[in-house]
């Protein structure tokens, strides 16, 4: 029996879909059987971020309405054989599925997969209720902004009401240079408010934009900083204790200095 995790945030645009794509791909890379479920019906994106849009024939709504079997709707990833996507319907709305149906669906998927990751839509309405219905645990994604943290706090409360306790937090798009100057909330500020367990910190990274547009999750890119952050998150989900990334200043001078110091040591 696998584990279902909902990735949610309240606020839109903080990186839920990117997080689901990267954690899912990362887990599959280390050999886990993973199913990604896009619960954002009517505004599906996960297929695009995964680069699988052109393979969609059936979707989640077709499954719950009984037009096809769950197997026919699952799309195998083009890179990893043990990674699957259940896409959302684009031409329907959130109320086309009920929380009970989602729960049944996720339960069924848990029998086949080690991890079922549900990509939750922004907001706290029907779409949110659907996405959290079948979840065993939750990951909350936020950015170090007051508004995103405020929404994340609201989500923690709503998850408690759904009996999902102890959600884990990912702080996305952190800019160490700005934090150092005091222009951005730092990790401690965010943790102070939310008081939940930190799962990972993902630095702001231009390569994410490139990888998202290309449909290739950053976690596959060995050189990407954010990819490294996601690989660490994957290991933490697997129960390993991994120290948080030292998010240093990445200016050219600092990088050169670091290069020399490494060169000097060896």
């Amino acid at each position, binding site marked *: 029996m696998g584990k279902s995790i909902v990735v949610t945030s309240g606020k839109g645009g903080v990186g839920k879909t990117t997080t689901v794509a990267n954690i899912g791909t990362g887990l599959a890379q280390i050999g886990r059987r993973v199913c990604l479920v896009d619960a954002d019906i009517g505004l599906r994106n996960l297929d695009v971020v995964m*680069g699988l849009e052109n393979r969609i024939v059936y979707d989640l709504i077709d499954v719950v309405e009984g037009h096809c079997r769950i197997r026919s709707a699952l799309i195998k990833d083009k890179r990893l054989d043990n990674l699957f996507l259940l896409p959302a319907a684009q*031409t329907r709305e959130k109320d086309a599925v009920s929380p009970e149906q989602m729960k049944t669906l996720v339960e069924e998927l848990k029998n086949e997969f080690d991890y079922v990751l549900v990509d939750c839509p922004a907001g706290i309405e029907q779409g949110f209720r659907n996405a959290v219905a079948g979840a065993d645990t939750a990951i909350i994604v936020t950015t170090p902004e007051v508004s995103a943290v405020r929404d994340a706090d609201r989500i923690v409360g709503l998850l408690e009401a759904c009996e999902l306790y102890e959600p884990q937090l990912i702080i996305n798009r952190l800019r160490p240079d700005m934090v150092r100057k005091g222009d951005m909330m730092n990790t401690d500020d965010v943790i102070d408010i939310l008081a939940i367990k930190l799962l990972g910190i993902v630095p702001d990274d231009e390569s994410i934009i490139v990888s998202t547009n290309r449909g290739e999750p950053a976690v596959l890119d060995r050189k990407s900083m954010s990819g490294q952050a996601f690989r660490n998150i994957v290991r933490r989900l697997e129960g390993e204790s991994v120290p948080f990334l030292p998010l240093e200043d990445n200016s050219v001078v600092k990088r050169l200095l670091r290069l020399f110091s490494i060169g000097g040591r060896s």
Partner: protein
Amino acid sequence: MAKEACIIKGTKHGISILIPSGLDFAEVLAQLRARLASAQEFFTGATVYVSTADRELGPEEKRQLEQTVEEFGMVISKKEDLEAAAVVTERREEPKDEGGEATLLVRRTIRSGQRIWYDGNVVILGDVNPGAEVVCTGDILVLGCLRGVAHAGCNGNVHATVFAFRLEPTQLRIANYISRSPDEKLPKPLGPEYARVCDNVIQISAYQSSQF
């Protein structure tokens, strides 16, 4: 309002009132009265032609009609003019099926999340964006860029085709055949192309007018 009991139109001969068949005469009169009353003095002094389509008016009905019209200060024209007016009145009949195929003309861009379903051919004067879907039993013609999903001949017609000025679909389906765009980026098509089923696969060719 249910069925309109009278249609008032301006013609070069004056005002034409068309009374369709199949409605109770009292109802017609009541509606006409209401319409004229709402227009206040707009029609005062106008010459009126009354056309009754295929309805036969009895002498009493005709008298009542004239009375109503005159109440609002309009002048009813002589009978011979009435026939002339009937020519200009439009008859909204369904076009007779003369063996042609049903075709839906869509004058807009189909955006993500929008879906067109039609029993027949579909012509789109606009684009079909990624995430949009066009499904029909006949051919699909996109006079624009097709980037979404197109399914022609969805009830099993393998002879259906998909045509577009720029054919860059996410996925193409014809009858029971499915093909998807390649994962690598392809050079953009330079001209109109069409897709059809050839040897059990969907084949895309450049469009030349002589082929059709």
